[in-house]
Structures are given as structure tokens and as C-alpha cells.
């Protein structure tokens, strides 16, 4: 991929900073999300909570549905391709959506390789559980990162764990002497050039959102406080009692993450949150975050 194109793609992610990206399954939901202040929508056939409940193989959404959602809003539209599924990614690029999420929420197509993202003009966002995983995806051409969390649970614990892991990795690199970089890279599978860049910048070189388990304005604010640049909310909105109100409140909670009185105000009377399931009650083989490497 041409360098200029990569720059434009990272810069679109920069314009999403401080915002909330919401999972939607219908054009009507997309419009609700846009009006509530979403900075982008993720077009899906099923939200992660339903994928989890219904099981089976989860694939890229029907292009007809993606097209309908694209036609219904003017904010960016993202859609998911399976990890390593180059052809699903090519189809999404042909649909001219705005961003592809190479996502562990769908059933992986390749357990060895992720999509070679440099070959595409369209931007990719990829999930990561720690600094090494984030840097590997950036080396493959991801223009944006999101920490994985555990999608469809409404449990924030994994999102926190992954954000801490990324932050810890950055801190380690920043505090290192130059000669310590290569062994650290070797141990954590970090591409050396990206590691140097992280050390120099003191953060990931691309925008990093939090995802997987955010269900309340307080959850969104917690992740912002930990240093992410914005949040993805999947099942948390349209699996709740009053999606519109909750969507607006999460947008406010993200913008005013460091302002407890405003957070208290926007958290009032939101109705039922998604029921969710504690991550520690889910059998190991059903966890999504472990997909990809």
C-alpha cells in the first residue's frame, strides 16, 4: 500500500478520537447511533452477544445489509472480516466501506496468518491483547488498533486487562536502554522498527480504541482514563433497555471521562443495562480474545 494512503487512513482514525463506535444490525439502529453521536458504526448481522449465544460459524455480514446501512448514515461505516480472510476483506473494500475490522468476534479463517493489510487501500483496525500483538498488526498495515476485551459479555475486566498490558509494554520500552530493545522484542514478538517508534513516541504510533465489554458510560470513561483514544461499544447499546438513551450517555461519558459530576448526571436513569455474562463463567474454548495472536 502506498505510504500516502496509509497516512490518510491513520488520519481518519485520528479524527475519530474521543468518540464512540457502535455496533448496529439494521439501518434504523444505524440512524439511532448517528443521532446519539456515534463517530462511526460497525455494520453487523448479529451483535457479539448473539453470536456468543447462537454459536455456529460467524462470517462477514451480507453485503446487501452493509450497503443499506451505508445508505442510511453519513458517518463512517465499518464492517468485520474474519481473521486472515483476505477475500472477505477484498469484498468489503469493493463495497467501499470506510474501515475494515479484522475481528476475533467472527470465526477465524486462518489460524496462522492475518490479512496482509499493506496490499489494501482501505484502512484496517485490528484487535490486540498486549503491546506485541498491537505492534504485529501495525507491521502488517493496521492503521488503527483496538484492545480486544471480551466481546459480547458486558464485562469490562478483559478490556482493562488488555489496556493495562499495552500500557505496561509501552512503559517498559520507554524506560529501556537501546541495547535492551532487541531482547525485549524477541521475547514479546514485537517487530523491531515498530518498537523503536513506540519508544520514541511514548505510545502506539496509531490511534488505539478500547473494545469488548463496555456497557455503561462509566465503563467508557474508565477506559478513556486508562489512556485509550476512544471506545467501541458492541452489544452494550442495542442489548440494553433504552438503546438511544444509553448510546447518548456513553457518548457523553467518553467526552467527559475525567469529570465525575457530569458522569453522575449522564449515568442517571438509563434503564436496564445488557444482562451480560461474567468472563470467568465462560468456558475457555468459547472466549474470543484468544483468536489471532
Amino acid at each position, binding site marked *: 500500500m502506498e505510504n500516502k494512503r496509509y497516512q*490518510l487512513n491513520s*488520519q*481518519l482514525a485520528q479524527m475519530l478520537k*474521543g468518540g464512540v463506535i457502535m455496533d448496529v444490525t439494521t439501518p434504523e439502529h444505524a440512524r439511532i447511533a448517528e443521532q446519539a453521536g456515534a*463517530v*462511526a458504526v460497525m455494520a453487523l448481522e448479529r451483535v457479539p452477544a448473539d453470536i456468543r449465544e447462537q454459536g455456529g460459524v460467524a462470517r462477514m455480514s451480507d453485503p446487501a445489509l452493509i450497503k443499506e446501512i451505508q445508505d442510511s448514515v453519513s458517518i463512517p461505516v465499518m464492517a468485520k472480516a474474519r481473521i486472515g480472510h483476505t477475500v472477505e476483506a477484498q469484498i468489503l473494500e469493493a463495497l467501499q*466501506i470506510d*474501515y475494515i475490522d479484522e475481528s476475533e468476534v467472527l470465526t477465524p479463517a486462518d489460524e496462522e496468518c492475518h490479512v496482509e493489510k499493506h496490499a489494501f487501500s482501505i484502512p484496517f483496525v485490528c484487535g490486540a491483547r498486549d503491546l506485541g500483538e498491537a505492534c504485529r498488526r501495525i507491521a502488517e498495515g493496521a492503521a488503527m488498533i483496538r484492545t480486544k476485551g471480551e466481546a459480547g459479555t458486558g464485562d469490562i475486566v478483559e478490556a482493562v486487562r488488555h489496556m493495562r498490558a499495552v500500557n505496561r509494554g509501552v512503559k517498559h520500552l520507554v524506560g529501556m536502554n537501546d541495547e535492551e530493545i532487541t531482547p525485549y522484542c524477541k521475547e514479546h514478538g514485537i517487530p523491531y522498527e515498530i518498537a523503536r517508534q513506540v519508544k520514541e513516541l511514548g505510545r502506539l504510533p496509531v490511534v488505539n480504541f478500547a473494545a469488548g465489554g463496555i456497557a455503561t458510560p462509566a465503563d467508557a470513561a474508565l477506559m478513556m482514563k486508562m489512556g485509550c483514544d476512544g471506545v467501541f461499544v458492541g452489544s452494550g447499546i442495542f442489548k440494553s433497555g433504552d438503546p438511544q438513551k444509553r448510546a447518548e450517555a456513553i*457518548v457523553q461519558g467518553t467526552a467527559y471521562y475525567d469529570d465525575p459530576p457530569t458522569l453522575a448526571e449522564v449515568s442517571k436513569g438509563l434503564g436496564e443495562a445488557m444482562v451480560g455474562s461474567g468472563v470467568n463463567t465462560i468456558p475457555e474454548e468459547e472466549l474470543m480474545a484468544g483468536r489471532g495472536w
Partner: protein
Amino acid sequence: MDESAEAKNDHIGILNLQGGIVEHQDHMMRLGVACVPVRRKQDLVGLAGLIIPGGESTCLGRLIRNAGLDREICEAYEEGLQLWGTCAGAILLAQHVNNDAPHLGLIDITISRNAFGSQLASFHEEIRIPELAAESIPLTFIRAPKITKVGSDVTALGRIDDCIIAAETENILVTVFHPELTSSLAFHRHFAHKCGLTTDCDGKSSLIDPHWSPYSWTRQYQQR
């Protein structure tokens, strides 16, 4: 920010709700112009100008309405506050938004959201605007809107093909592209001058900052 700065109206505010905030902050730092984040009514006190950054206009519109900042910005504008909207910010300032309701409605332009197409249609361009800089100015368009019409009191500053990409009145500047995502400080200096401020680059012939890189925005995080 010290008290005396506040009294003299010698700094610029950046709407700090969502979008490309640190990018504008970084450019203004390069010009030696003091900046403050604006998120509440009281933050508007003592500003010479306010930048409404790029981001998503529906998001920014909702957040300023929820905070009551829409009325406050309009009132401050009546009292002489200079305004600059980039991309989504331009949509917020427009009096007419095609297929949508206007937000602040302060400048007589008609604008269409996301008018070039999806992210695949985002592009770089260069144009000459002799009033702003001697050299050609690099421009970055990201899912940009198009200004389709301007009122008689509005001056078009630049065009690409049939569309106006930058326009101004005495107190408002709108750009559908992102000068904060390029190495050029020309538009930031122009806005500082509209605000009656001097910059470290006054009198310089080149406004391209050789030290700028696409990663410069990350600097602002190290300083937190």
C-alpha cells in the same frame, strides 16, 4: 494559562469534545500561540478565537447542545469571538447543511456532508493561496464535505474544480480540509492573525514546518 493571559484575550480555544484536538494544539504550539481546551461555558471567557476541529459533526453537534455551548458560542461570536471550523467544524458553522438541519448556523454557506465519497476517496492536494503563503499549501481531505454555495458577504479563499474548499467572513473561517494534518502552518497563522495575535512565524516566507511529521500529534500525549 495565567490570569493576565485571560484578561488580554491573547489565546485561542480548541473545542475539546471529540476529534482532531491535539493536532490543532500542536500546530498552534509551533506558531508560539497559547491554546486552551474548551469543554464548558466558562472556558470561553477571555478567548480571542475558537477552533472547532474535525471529527463527526453529528457527534460534536449533540455534545455542544447537551452542554449548552451552542448558545454560548453564538453569544461569544456576537461579542467578537473569531471562529474557525475545519471539516466537521465547518459543517457546524454553516447556515445551510444539505439534507440536514444546521447546527450553529453562523456563516452563510451551503455545505454537503461527506461529499467526496467513502474513505477510499480521501486525498491529498496542493493549492496556492497567495494571501496566506508564498509557496503552495498541502491540503488533506478526509471524507470531506463540499461547500456548494456561499453568500454575498462570504469570500471564497480556495477552490478545487467546481467546489469551494475554504471561505471566510471578517470573523469566521471555514476549511473543508485539515491543515492540522499537514506540515503547513499557513492556515493556523492566518487564523491567529484574524484573532489579532502575532505568531513566531510572522514575516517568514515559508510556512512549511520541516520538523512536522504525521506522528507529531502524539507529542501532546507525552506532555500529559
